[in-house]
């Protein structure tokens, strides 16, 4: 970047998004992601000369909520957790699971998975250690599973692991505790009661190097679940000694390639290499995470060589596009996320599938991706995003160039020329969300003649209004927790926890139920593809865009492996492979 060009662009391109970023700073994005194959990456040189200073400097979009793996629910926390912990398995760059603490990935053939698919046995590597040098034994994995179901646990991810708990209404457990508290039970009585009503866990460690998970029902994606942060091992002795404050830097003990050395809340985090890690020792000595939520400021810091990697916001993307030098450092890759429109099926007009199809068809998704979002995202027609098994590029093709068909559908549904139909978009008060709502309004009014009202709310009110059904359309989406359609399709099953629009379709439910138990992978994926066709055709939701990550990486960051499961920072899942080579002073 030349010094003379920045000012003009800097002020115009940086200042205005600043306001927008402040407004969006508090909105948490669901799990972040990316495709295994970056579209453009600086090619790592075959043999790199490592610099003396091996520190990577990156920026987090905010403060992690917690560095306790069983309590973490946000992608900022998970980004750090993945660098400081090792689980039984790890998701590889190709999205398959690879052994990490485990000696090998369990299969039916090697006896790791029982023939009925209900028992998973992991044999741990020899000589595993915690970051304080003490031996890591299989009991630590039983502890982590147990902590997921403790009363007071957030529970958002405990839901994923319900197959590990004995069938029982564990929601009722908390209700029993509450009733006792109301009745004036003492603290000791409450503790005893809590222990009594806890769901009994079906995880055991027959010896120090073996952990066995017994499932209630066959769960083909369990290996993906075993690679996720909620099952990372924990030090129960540390938690008992320090209570809720244990994840602070002074007392944090983990078992990953790096360990937590410093955590200045809201300011910075420093990880240093964990000398006791079982894997090939990382070249990096330390990773510095700053926490500046302003994309514009992060961009200035990148230009000033204060950051080695920066994620681009909309204004910065335009700046990079116009700058030949910066374009050399640009990487972009698809994320495993889909954003679109949820229709309220309880709304009288929208309960007519023809109206929903008309609204789905009356949008020019290319214009949205290319013009409104400046190419930061990809137009979407399906639910399962590209890069994930079960993605079908053909699905949703009926909505491409669908304006004429949409107009006909509206007439058929009793709204000729859109007359008499009013659509209310419930929108979160963030820059992107407002932009999207305004674009939708313009599209539907222009293409279909529909009257569109936008209701803007702050995040918590938005969620409350959405649950109360006070809307006809909301913009929302999903990011992959693990790269499998099993994480995506059950959302729309009748009674599903996130099925806010209350979509009900028996054939869809049957296909998804069947897929959940299917052990033959090819057939399993096909069932999800079939279910997805029904979903898009019945349109309780219509896709708008697939997420993409746009970032700049300094040429001296070599060995960076962007991945869809990395969280908030490009390459964060494999920082142990990064080498700093030839950094400019």
């Amino acid at each position: 970047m030349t010094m003379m060009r920045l000012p003009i662009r800097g002020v115009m391109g940086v200042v205005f998004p600043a306001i927008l970023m402040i407004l969006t700073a508090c909105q948490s994005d669901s799990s972040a992601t990316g495709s295994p194959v970056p579209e453009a990456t600086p090619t790592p040189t075959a043999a790199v000369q490592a610099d003396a200073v091996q520190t990577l400097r990156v920026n987090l979009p905010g403060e992690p909520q917690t560095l306790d793996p069983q309590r973490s629910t946000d992608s900022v926390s998970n980004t750090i957790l993945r660098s400081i912990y090792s689980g039984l398995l790890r998701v590889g760059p190709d999205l398959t699971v690879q052994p990490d603490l485990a000696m090998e990935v369990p299969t039916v053939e090697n006896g790791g998975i029982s023939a009925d698919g209900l028992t998973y046995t992991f044999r741990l590597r020899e000589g595993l250690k915690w970051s304080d040098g003490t031996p890591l034994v299989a009991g630590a994995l039983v502890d982590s599973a147990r902590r997921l179901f403790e009363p007071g646990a957030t529970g958002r991810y405990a839901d994923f692991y319900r197959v590990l708990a004995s069938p029982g209404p564990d929601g009722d457990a908390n209700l029993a505790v509450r009733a006792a508290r109301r009745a004036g039970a003492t603290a000791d009585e409450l503790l005893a009661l809590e222990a009594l009503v806890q769901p009994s866990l079906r995880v055991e460690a027959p010896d120090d190097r073996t952990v066995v998970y017994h499932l209630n029902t066959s769960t083909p994606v369990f290996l993906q679940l075993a690679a996720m942060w909620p099952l990372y091992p924990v030090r129960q002795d540390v938690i008992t000694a320090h209570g809720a404050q244990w994840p602070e830097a002074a007392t944090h003990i983990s078992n990953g390639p790096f360990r937590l050395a410093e955590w200045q809340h809201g300011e910075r985090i420093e990880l240093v290499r964990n000398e006791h890690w079982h894997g090939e020792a990382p070249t990096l000595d330390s990773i510095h995470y700053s926490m500046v939520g302003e994309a514009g400021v992060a961009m200035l810091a990148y230009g000033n060589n204060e950051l080695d990697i920066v994620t681009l916001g909309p204004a910065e993307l335009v700046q990079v596009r116009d700058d030949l030098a910066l374009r050399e450092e640009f990487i972009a890759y698809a994320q495993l996320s889909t954003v679109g429109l949820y229709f309220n099926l309880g709304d009288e007009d929208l309960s007519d599938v023809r109206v929903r199809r008309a609204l789905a068809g009356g949008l020019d998704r290319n214009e949205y991706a290319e013009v409104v979002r400046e190419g930061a995202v990809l137009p979407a027609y399906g639910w399962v995003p590209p890069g994930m098994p079960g993605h079908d590029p053909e699905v949703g093709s009926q909505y491409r160039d669908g304006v004429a068909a949409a107009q006909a559908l509206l007439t058929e549904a009793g709204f000729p020329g859109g007359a008499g139909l009013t659509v209310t978009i419930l929108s979160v008060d963030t820059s992107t969300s407002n932009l999207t709502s305004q674009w939708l309004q313009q599209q539907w009014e222009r293409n279909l003649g529909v009257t569109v009202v936008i209701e803007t709310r702050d995040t918590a009110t938005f969620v409350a209004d959405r649950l109360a059904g006070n809307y006809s359309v909301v913009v929302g989406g999903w990011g992959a927790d693990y790269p499998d359609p099993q994480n995506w399709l059950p959302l729309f099953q009748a009674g599903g926890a996130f099925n806010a629009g209350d979509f009900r379709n028996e054939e869809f439910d049957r296909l998804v139920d069947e897929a959940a138990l299917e052990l033959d992978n090819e057939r399993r994926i096909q069932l999800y593809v079939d279910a997805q066709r029904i979903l898009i055709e019945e349109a309780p939701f219509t896709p708008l865009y697939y997420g993409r990550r746009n970032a700049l990486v300094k040429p001296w960051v070599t060995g960076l492996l962007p991945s869809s499961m990395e969280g908030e920072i490009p390459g964060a899942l494999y920082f142990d492979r990064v080498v700093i080579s030839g950094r400019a002073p």
Partner: protein
Amino acid sequence: MARYIAARLLWTVVTLFALAAITFALMHRVPGGPFDAASVDRPLPAAVLEAQQAYYGLDDPVPVQFGRYLGHLVRGNLGVSFAQQGRPVTDLMLDKMWPSLLLGLMAFGVVVGGGVPLGVLAATHRGRAVDTVALGVATALAAVPSFVLAFVLLLIFSVWLGWTPVFMGAGFGESLSSLPRGIVPAIALGAPAMALISRITRASMLEALEQDYVRTARAKGLSPLAVTLRHALRNALIPVVTVLGPVLAGLITGSIIIESIFGVPGIGSAFITSVTARDYGVIMGTTLLYGAVIMLVNLAVDLAYPVLDPRVTLR
């Protein structure tokens, strides 16, 4: 005097109680709760939500919750944060108060050190070039939004001159050597108030310079500097001090804009994020802190009046 202070402090406690009650009632009335705000696309399953609310006692009637809160409050327990899971609110606020306080005091230095001399200069050179320039600077600083000023300062000092890093870096306020890093943010934070103070000082000085005692002082043959500083300025400062109180309170309680641009982990952004996250404990803690700071600063201002003007007595 002691009785006056005691009475004022008693009223401060009463006011804080009212503030606590109103805030508590309002934040529970606003739609959405701490477990709704966490994620737009992943509301908690109903059973889990209910269990969570039961665990934190959020399912009790609001007056019961308020009673419990007050009980904890008088024992110095402000509860735990929902957004930063399990962190005690006192701990979190102490962490965030220090950078804000320090930066606010530095900005206050900018306000007083820049605003008052600028106003005095403008008044003593009324109608001349110095006055016009001072007025121009003040108007520009008052008109430019602080985030624009912040970015311009970042461009000048960090990108062009390279004197300071873009990121303030960790540990601001932990050592003397870290203080210079706060200069640029302090200028950005203090500039609008500095403009205000210079305007008020100028107007007040113009009035003072017209007074008889100033003419007398001049007639006695005192140097112009002594006349201006010892006789005119001291009297002109009363309206300025009145404004400086709230200005100080505003500066040390943080600014979300300056804090987010310069990456200061301050209390201003903690307050705003707690509201959007419905992080009840932090909302209450920061609101009470703001209330206490503003009332104590106002008390300090009132106590300063008799020092500036012997005719004023406090009862």
